[in-house]
């Protein structure tokens, strides 16, 4: 495995791999989101309690899940950066953080807009909503720390440590609906029992989940390409790459 992985510690090799994979992930993003969103908005049946307002679920749940998934990925990269000192892992931190922050904002916004008609309020300071808001602050903190030092590698290390410490927030978000009294409903699909959602709604939701996964990967890849080029600006390959288009 090391023989296979080791070349990707070289920034140019990672860049070429990302460049090769990105069009495929971008295509998958457009296809799955178009199908999932159209299905969820127009073809899935209305909910017997929430009517058509529940259709926000097709954005809210995928955004919330991958706001946490992106954080887990960023923390893993932070760990790799600290243990093996691999530069491309360091650079993936500022590539992932803004994407994760955007997903967190989408989850919070769609949640607030869904909360207004269903709970009668845009916002409550309960466990699920507050812990998701803390996730947004963690992302902002990681980005701020990364760029807060004159020495880029010191900043990367500090950001990696914060991203690892912040992992504690992920189980808190997930179990917040069980540990504390909350307005937020319990888990629908991220549990070991059968999903508590009708199949006619579950299928478009799963397609939207796949769409957000591909979207997250595509955006991170786009940003990682920039990040690699930014650090390799003095090298001929990066200059050639930037002149190409």
């Amino acid at each position: 495995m090391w023989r296979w992985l080791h070349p990707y510690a070289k920034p140019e090799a990672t860049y070429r791999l990302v460049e090769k994979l990105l069009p495929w992930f971008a295509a998958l993003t457009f296809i799955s989101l178009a199908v999932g969103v159209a299905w969820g908005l127009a073809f899935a049946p209305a909910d017997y309690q929430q009517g058509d307002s529940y259709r926000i679920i097709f954005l809210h749940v995928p955004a919330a899940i991958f706001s946490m998934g992106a954080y887990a990925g960023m923390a893993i990269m932070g760990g790799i950066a600290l243990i093996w000192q691999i530069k491309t892992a360091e650079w993936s931190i500022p590539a992932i953080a803004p994407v994760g922050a955007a997903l967190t904002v989408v989850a919070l916004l769609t949640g607030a807009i869904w909360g207004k008609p269903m709970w009668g309020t845009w916002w409550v300071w309960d466990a699920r909503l507050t812990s998701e808001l803390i996730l947004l602050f963690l992302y902002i903190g990681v980005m701020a720390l990364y760029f807060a030092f004159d020495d880029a590698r010191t900043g990367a290390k500090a950001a990696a440590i914060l991203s690892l410490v912040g992992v504690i927030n992920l189980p808190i978000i997930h179990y917040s609906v069980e540990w504390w009294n909350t307005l937020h409903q319990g888990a629908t699909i991220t549990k070991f029992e059968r999903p508590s959602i009708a199949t006619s709604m579950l299928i478009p939701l799963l397609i939207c989940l796949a769409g957000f996964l591909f979207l997250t990967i595509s955006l991170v890849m786009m940003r990682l390409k920039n990040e690699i080029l930014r650090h390799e600006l003095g090298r001929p390959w990066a200059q050639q790459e930037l002149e190409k288009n």
Partner: protein
Amino acid sequence: MPFDSFQDFIIMGGYGLYVWLSFFLSFVVIALVALETAIARKSLRKKSQQLQNRQQRLAKRQRSVSQ
């Protein structure tokens, strides 16, 4: 199809404002991230150009000094 007409689809059983607002805002947020990434790529290209011009100027000056 749960909707009888296009108008029904827009109204969303009275929840139209909430549903469409959440889809619109989500799109805006994601689009902003993608846009920022594209702009960053453009400014990198500019920076790379400046760096190369500077290196060429330096090389020229060095040649003229050594002659």
